[in-house]
């Protein structure tokens, strides 16, 4: 079974803090994704990575950055957290670049509250 784990289930931070969200997958997947989930908006792609040290912007990258130093680990960074970044953050991974219809496997999510 594919397992995607996220470092925290709940996180509370203050405005202006630097925030790190960590994601690890154990199935040697090529692709990793970060989404945010908000009521009425569904899942929106923030960033994704198709290889170590490679990254691409998604639909809402503003205010975020990412890091992928190892294949299994993908980090989302909020350089200076703001209240409008309060949300549920979901990490996902998928197998291969050559199969665009590959299933995305999601972690359980991190609910981030920025005060």
């Amino acid at each position, binding site marked *: 079974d594919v397992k*995607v784990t996220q470092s925290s289930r709940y996180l509370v931070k203050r405005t202006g803090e630097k925030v790190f969200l960590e994601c690890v997958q154990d199935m040697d997947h090529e*692709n990793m994704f970060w*989404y945010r989930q908000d009521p*009425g*908006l*569904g*899942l*929106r*792609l923030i960033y*994704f990575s*198709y290889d170590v040290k490679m990254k*691409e912007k*998604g639909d809402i990258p503003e205010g975020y950055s990412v890091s992928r130093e190892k294949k299994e680990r993908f980090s989302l960074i909020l350089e200076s957290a703001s209240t409008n970044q309060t949300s549920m953050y*979901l990490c*996902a991974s*998928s197998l291969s*670049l*050559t*199969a*665009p*219809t*590959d*299933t*995305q*496997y*999601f*972690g*359980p*999510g991190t609910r981030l509250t920025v005060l």
Partner: protein
Amino acid sequence: QQQVKQSPQSLIVQKGGISIINCAYENTAFDYFPWYQQFPGKGPALLIAIRPDVSEKKEGRFTISFNKSAKQFSLHIMDSQPGDSATYFCAASRGTDSWGKLQFGAGTQVVVTP
């Protein structure tokens, strides 16, 4: 602006009834349409998916109907059970997009009453 529009936002159905969720899209380049199911406290998980070369796909009690000319697709849950209570997301992606990026709908919360 959401590229995939999903409705209804929520629905309540009695046990044994049929749940129907509809999605519409504009981008004719989309050619892969998965549905994801999310239980409270969990991440979404792939439920069923369809390519536009077929008009219907069935897996157990779950059926996707696809209307290419109308640019619409829908999920039918037959004989709905309380264990089906979850949030359902439709999604779409382009096969030419090798990154497999998905555009998700807003989600439908389904509650199945006993």
